[in-house]
Structures are given as structure tokens and as C-alpha cells.
């Protein structure tokens, strides 16, 4: 009895999100469409409550629950808090967009909360089974969200594509996990690590399992050569859903990689380092070069995501403590940037107009200097130009890679960053140097404007004072991995 209570308390934030997702789904049935703001407020309050419990329970010490299948450590707490923040931003940015398109319904909020729950489980997964369950909960919610705009053929196509490829990747992941289970006799990550540390010769099946696991993870991260779905899904989904797919799940995927590769399979580091290296180099290359040719802003940001993932992998492939810390710093920075970037697209859309073409940004500086300035910060941050946050993110992962001795790969990444700068600059060029095509006034609720301003200015302010965020990442990784 005592253990069950302890288990439930450890997983209290997850339970809150789970219960509230169901409550929202039910409430939505009994509420008139005019009063849907209640649903919205409930969803925001859920995040607040979960944040409160995650924060109050956080401690540098590690506690496990459910027979070691679930873990609550510093990394889990930090990442969960970031997730709540990101999800809350998503709710704020997307509200008006959803209202205009008839998608402002309980399902959206329930599905987002379910996907959040999946991510939280992934972040806290300490057994391959938990990790997998969390991942599937996330993926299934996302498939449904992509297809939410039922009558939109593009969205349906994107959902189909996402689902088929996603199922394939889940299959691969599961296959890999089964091999690891077969060789080590345990699903628990710590036990797998112990079994491998015992010194016995590592069987080839283990490596084969690793290949499948890495391939499955690469798909979820959207790293080359498993990136095919990314541009299509980004473009086809309603922008509010693209905002979700492109941002918060990357935190969970990062945690998944740390749990699986670093906590369970550090003995195979030499093997997965090579795989990550190839994916990192290809992601940066293909992401940056293909982005140049895009005319659709969402597609361009999709390729930009691929290249950012490449940079995250640069930190991970170093396989040093600093490498993991800086990779986490990069992921968190990336999430902040991408939220602000898609936030602006959402802000510029109105009924019947998506604002997802690059040309839709033309002359934004004349329409609204403030929002053009915010987008300017986001773009320079993505390009990695100081004094924005993106600079420190790139700077720190490159430093980790250089410390691990990958000097020519770093030079390569730097050259690719210059190519990357080109398409970010093009966005700025459109906003600042061209005359506007579209003269509609920008209408957005006050809270969206404030949060968006806060989000984008954070890129500048944290860029000037990155110490705090860096300390948080150091704290999260060192207390979880030591």
C-alpha cells in the first residue's frame, strides 16, 4: 500500500495531466461552443498545476517508482518544466488560429495534453517499455492532431504519411529493443547497463539492436536519412499543430536519446558515436542546402529543424558530459526559437489566409515594426549570430565537438552555418527590404502579443546572459548522469 502511494506521488504531475485531459474531453461535451474559453483555461491551469508539483518535488536526488520503470530525476524535472512552458505558449499562440478555423474544440486540448503526457512518460522512462509506451502515446496523439482539420486534403495526406512512416519507425525501435532485451535479459535501463558492464564480449546482435534503436530515434528526431516526413508533415499540418510537432517533442526525443544511449548503452558508445556522427553531418548538410530552395516558410523551417537536430547530434556524438549538457542547451534554445518563429506565422494568419509563404512576410517592417523586429531576432538566433541565444547554442556544441577532437567536422559545420545564414537572411530581407504585398492590419489578442514578445525577447536577453540557462542544464545533466 505504502509503495503504491509512493509510486503515485512520484508520478503526480503525470496523473494530473492524465486526469485533466479526460476531464476536458468530457466537459467539452456539455459546454456550449460560445463558452469554450473554459476549456482553454482548464488546459492552462492543468499545466500550471503540473508545473507546481514538478517544481515542488524536484530534488537533485533520484527517486524511482513502479518497480524501477519510472524515474524522477533532475533532468526529468527540468525538461518537464520546459515542456509545460512550451505547451502553454502553444496554447496561447494557437487560440485565435483555432477559433478562426473551427478547430477550437476540446479534442485539440485533450490531444495536446495526451501528447504532453506521452512526452512526460518518455522523459521519466527508466525501462524500455515505459519509454516505448510514452513514445507511442505521443505519436498517436500527434497523428490525430495532424488530421484534425478533416476536410483539408493536404493535412490528411500529411497525417497518413506521418502515421505510416511513424509506425515503421516504432516497429524498428521495438525490434531493436527486443534484441537488447534478448541479449541482456532486462528491460530496465540501469540493469541493461550493468549487464553490459560485466565485461562479457558484446555480441553482434547487440550492435544490430543498437542500429535499429538509433534508426528509430533518428526518425523521431527527424535526422537525415530518416527526415523524409518532416517537411511534408510541417507543411501539411495546421500551423498550430506544426508549432507543437516542431517544438516540445524534441525535448522528449532528446531525453529518450540520453536515457537509451547514455544511461543504458554507454558501453556501446564507440558504435553509436559513429552512427550519430554520420547523421549529424548529413543533417546539417541536407537541412541547410535544401532549405535554400524553399518558398514555403513552414517547409523552410522544417529543413532548418533538420539542420538544428544535426547540431544537437554534434553535442551528443562527443559522448562527454559537456557534450550532453550543451546538446540539452541547444535543444532548449531550439525550442524557444521555433516557438517564437511559428508564433509569428500564427499571428499573421487570419481566416482563409495561412501566412505560410515566404512572400507573405514581405514588408512586415512597414506593417508592424515590432513584430518584424521579433522575427528578426528569431532569424538571427536560428542563424547563430550573436548576441542571440542561438549563438551560444551553436558555440557550445561546437566547443564540445572540438574538445572531443572532431576539428574538421566542426569546420564543416561552420561552413554549413554560413549557408544556413543565407536563408534566414532572406526572411529578413523580405521583411525589411521589400514592400508589403498584404496590407491587412494585424489582429491578435493582447495576451498573444505579450507572450510572443516575451518569448522572442528572451532569445535576446538569454543571449546576453546565458549563464542561468546553462547552469540549469549543467544541473540537470550532471545530477542525472553521475
Amino acid at each position: 500500500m505504502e509503495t503504491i502511494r509512493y509510486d503515485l506521488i512520484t508520478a503526480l504531475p503525470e496523473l494530473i495531466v492524465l486526469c485533466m485531459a479526460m476531464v476536458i474531453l468530457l466537459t467539452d461535451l456539455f459546454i456550449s461552443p460560445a463558452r469554450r474559453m473554459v476549456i482553454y483555461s482548464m488546459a492552462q491551469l492543468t499545466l500550471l498545476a503540473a508545473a507546481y508539483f514538478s517544481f515542488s518535488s524536484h530534488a537533485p536526488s533520484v527517486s524511482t517508482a513502479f518497480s524501477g520503470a519510472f524515474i524522477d530525476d533532475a533532468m526529468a524535472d527540468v525538461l518537464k518544466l520546459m515542456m509545460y512552458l512550451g505547451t502553454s505558449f502553444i496554447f496561447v499562440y494557437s487560440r485565435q488560429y483555432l477559433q478562426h478555423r473551427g478547430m477550437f474544440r476540446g479534442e485539440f486540448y485533450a490531444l495536446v495534453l495526451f501528447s504532453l503526457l506521452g512526452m512526460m512518460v518518455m522523459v521519466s522512462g527508466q525501462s524500455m517499455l515505459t519509454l516505448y509506451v510514452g513514445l507511442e502515446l505521443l505519436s498517436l496523439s500527434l497523428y490525430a492532431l495532424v488530421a484534425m482539420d478533416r476536410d483539408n486534403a493536404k493535412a490528411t495526406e500529411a497525417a497518413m504519411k506521418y502515421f505510416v512512416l511513424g509506425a515503421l519507425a516504432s516497429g524498428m525501435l521495438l525490434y531493436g529493443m527486443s534484441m537488447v532485451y534478448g541479449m541482456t535479459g532486462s528491460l530496465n535501463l540501469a540493469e541493461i547497463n550493468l549487464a553490459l558492464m560485466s565485461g562479457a564480449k558484446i555480441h553482434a546482435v547487440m550492435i544490430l539492436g543498437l542500429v535499429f534503436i538509433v534508426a528509430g530515434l533518428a526518425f523521431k528526431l527527424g535526422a537525415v536519412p530518416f527526415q523524409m516526413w518532416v517537411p511534408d508533415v510541417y507543411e501539411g499540418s495546421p500551423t498550430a499543430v506544426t508549432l507543437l510537432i516542431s517544438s516540445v517533442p524534441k525535448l522528449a526525443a532528446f531525453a529518450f536519446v540520453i536515457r537509451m544511449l547514455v544511461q543504458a548503452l554507454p558501453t556501446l558508445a564507440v558504435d553509436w558515436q559513429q552512427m550519430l556522427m554520420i547523421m549529424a553531418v548529413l543533417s546539417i548538410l541536407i537541412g541547410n542546402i535544401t532549405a535554400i530552395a524553399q518558398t514555403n516558410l513552414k517547409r523552410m523551417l522544417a529543413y532548418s529543424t533538420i539542420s538544428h537536430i544535426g547540431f544537437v547530434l554534434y553535442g551528443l556524438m562527443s559522448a562527454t558530459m559537456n557534450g550532453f549538457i550543451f546538446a540539452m542547451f541547444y535543444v532548449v534554445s531550439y525550442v524557444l526559437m521555433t516557438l517564437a518563429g511559428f508564433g509569428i506565422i500564427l499571428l499573421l494568419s487570419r481566416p482563409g489566409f495561412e501566412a505560410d509563404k515566404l512572400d507573405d512576410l514581405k514588408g512586415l517592417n512597414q506593417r508592424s515594426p515590432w513584430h518584424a523586429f521579433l522575427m528578426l531576432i528569431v532569424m538571427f538566433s536560428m542563424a547563430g549570430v550573436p548576441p542571440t541565444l542561438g549563438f551560444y547554442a551553436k558555440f557550445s556544441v561546437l566547443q564540445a565537438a572540438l574538445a572531443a577532437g572532431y576539428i574538421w567536422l566542426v569546420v564543416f559545420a561552420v561552413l554549413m552555418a554560413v549557408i544556413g545564414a543565407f536563408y534566414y537572411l532572406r526572411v529578413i530581407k523580405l521583411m525589411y527590404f521589400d514592400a508589403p504585398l498584404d496590407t491587412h492590419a494585424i489582429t491578435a489578442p493582447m495576451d498573444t502579443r505579450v507572450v510572443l514578445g516575451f518569448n522572442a525577447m528572451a532569445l535576446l536577453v538569454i543571449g546576453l546572459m546565458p549563464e542561468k540557462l546553462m547552469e540549469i542544464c549543467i544541473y540537470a545533466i550532471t545530477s542525472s548522469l553521475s
Partner: protein
Amino acid sequence: MQNYFYHHLLSFAIWLPVLAGVVVLASANENKPNATRWLALLGGLLSFLVTIPLYTQFNFADGGLQFQEGFSWIPAFNINYHLGADGLAVPLILLTSFTTLIVIIAAWEVIEKRVAQYMACFLIMSGLMIGVFSALDAILYYVFWEAMLIPMFLVIGIWGGPNRVYATVKFFLYTLLGSLLMLVAFIYLYLNTGSFEIADFYRFPMPLQVQILVFLAFFVAFAVKIPMWPVHTWLPDAHVEAPTGGSVVLAAIALKLGGYSFLRFAMPIAPDAAHHLTPYMISLSLIAIVYIALVALVQKDMKKLIAYSSISHMGFVTLGFFLFNNIGLEGAIVQMLSHGFISAAMFLCVGVLYDRVHSRQIEAYGGVANTMPVFAAFAVFFAMANTGLPGTSGFVGEFMVILGAIQINFWYAFLAAFTLIFGAAYTLWMVKRVFYGAVANDQVAALNDLNKREFFILATLAVLVLALGVYPQAVTDMTNATVNELLTHFAQSKLPASLPAGL
């Protein structure tokens, strides 16, 4: 309070213009451009005034870094906010704040659209460039160096000419490519020394092969900025398309960032590589001096001509650096300042004509001296200074560098001296075609002479060009001790006694 101010002179010099820029931006009102202009002028004036104590408080006998201040900025990487300036940096800082003031006045009625953004860009840029000249921590320096690109990118792109987008993107990407390689070098040095302090980099011994790689990484960054042949092609494009103010800041200050950084980073951090590569550096400088001067000769666009002339004159600067003697190095520093005044003035002259006729083509003019006699007098004076007429600042720097070169190798001096012929040829030929002869067309016939504002700007610059030409000691007294210090630095070999493991 006063004490606080004197202990943080450099911080004030950096952040006051940035703050002024933000205030101008925040209080912008498109319907009241005059209020914005006066506010920007006030900001520029205050920013200039706070840099004056850097001169009055300067200790002329000390060749080291003065006005130092600092605190730990990002402890995770051991990055410090560490500022300081020596006899090399202080004149350049003064040049920066002065030029910004000139640019603000020069833009007065000329810039009509988005006045606040224009003024704010220049004010912020001024603070960032002073930051580059005074940062003593590599990452702090890098942040200023890169952040400075953003306002310049916008200035050329928003207020520039018809081909502005091409020019500004080229400018940005060229510079970014160079600086990212420099960043890799910084990280490499950090991983070996454990800090980003430039002083620690100076002390770190490296074998020659490593030094050459580090030097080349710096070289790419600085050579693009200066610009040296063959990576100069962004400059003519950027100058031609930039508005007058952009051209002035580019020529007068931005190019000096590269020159300054050679002396602050590349040469003292990798002195053996610098000596090893000297023949190449001198060859590139001489090519810039001679070949680019010939290119300038055939230009039809006045701004392009001055841009090529800038590259040619900056060739003198790099030549002076790599002579490794006192007079050459000092001459190079004087040349940087002198070029700052003269090129600014020349671009302002073109701006005066362009505002009236809206053409930069030489063939669109002729006989301007008949309708604008006062202006013609100024223009001819600055043209003479550009060719290196004795008595003007243009003469001092070039003469010192040639003197320095002749001590090393007669042929260096011989080739460098060609500029006195070519420089005179392209500058005076342009002056002849634009100002003399019969009035070419109706537009020229209708020209009005300088207004008070333009007269004031050009007169100030003319006085400075003369002053520096007649009394260069004002600068050389300041740089003397620093130059000696730098030369002792360059002369110390940093090769380690034994190769470190792994190399």
C-alpha cells in the same frame, strides 16, 4: 559618481550609444521626424563626449592596456566582460564616435523614410564597434564583431540603392564565413588555455604548424574585413549600394576593425606564423596597392572608384603591419586614421552630389566647379589628401610606411610608391571630369552650393585632415609606447620547447 564614471569609461563609450539607439527607436514617431533627428543628434553628441576623457586621461608613457574593467560574465565557459584600450585602440574609438556624429548630421534631411530606424542603427553600431576595439575577452570581442553586422546589414538593405539586396547579403555572408573560422580558432585556444582572455592566448606556446592554422583562421576573418585582395569583392558592391552614411561608416571604421584585429589577435597570438607567412602577406598587400589602384582607374562610378581606392590604401596598412619595424607599424596606424577621415569625406562629397543629381556616374557630371565653387574647393582638397599630398594626413601614413619598407627591401618600397602615381591618376582624373570643364548638362547648371550643414561637416573633416597632416605627433605620441610593446610581442617566439603529445 564621478569616480564611477572614470572607472567605467569604456563601458560608457559602448553602452551610451546603444542606449541612445534604443531610446530613439522606442520614441519613434513617423510624423515627427525632426524630434527623432534632434534626439539622435543628442545621443550621438553625448556618445562622442564620453569618449573624450579616453584621450585626456590617457597615460602616454604606458604601452599596455589602460582603462581596464571587468567582471565574470559566463562562468560556465570562463568568459569575462573585460575591457581595456591601449594607444592603438583609443584613437580608433575616438574616430568611431566622431564618425557616428558626422553620419547623424549628414543624414539630416537626406533620410526621409524610417528616420528612427536609420539613426538607431548607426548609434547601436557605433557602440558595438567601440566594443570591438576595447574587448579583451575573445568571446566578448566576437559578440561585438558579429552583432555589428546586423545593423550594417539593415542599413545597406533598407536605405541602399537598386541592387542593395545582393550587396548586403554578400557583405553579410563574406564576413560571417571569415568570422566563424575565427570562432573555431578561439575555441581551440580556449580548450588549450582554459580561458578566453586574450592575454592568456598570448602566453600559450604553439608549434609552427598549429600557429599557421590559427593564423590562417584569423587571416580569413580579418582579410575579408580589411579587405585584402582577393577577398575584397564585397566592398565595391557594398559601397556602391549603401547610403552615404553606410559608406562612410564602412570605409572609416569597419575596415579598421580588420586592421586593428590583426594587431590584437593574429600577430601576437601566432607570431611565428606571422613571420613565416610574411612574404605572402606583403605580396597580397602590394597587389592590393598596385593592382587595385589600376582597377580604380577604370571605374565609371564615383563610389566604386573611392571603394577601390580604399582597398588600395588599406594595402598600405597591411604592408606596414608586416614590415615588423617601428616606423612601418606606426605609419600603418596613422594611415588607418587618416583614411578614416579622408574616405569619410570623399564619400560625403559623393553624397552631396548624389542628393542633388541622383547619379553616381562620373559621366553625369562636368563643370560642377562652376555652379558649386565652395563644394569644389573642398572636394579638390580631399582629393589631394587622398593622393597623399604633403601637408595632409594622407601623406604622413604612406610616407612612413614607404620609409619602413625601404629598410626591409628596396623593391617593396619601390612598388608601394607607385600608389603615389596611380592614386594621383585616378583621383585627379575623376576630379577633372566631374568638377572642371564646361557645365555638362542642365542638371549640373541647376546645382546649388553647399548648405550650412554640409559646409560644417566638410569643414570639420578638412581641419582634421590638415591637423593630422601637419602635426601627426598628436597620434604618434599616443601610439608610440604601444607600438614598441606590440613589436616586442611579435618578436618573441612562441614555439614550445618540445612538441605536445598528439601532434
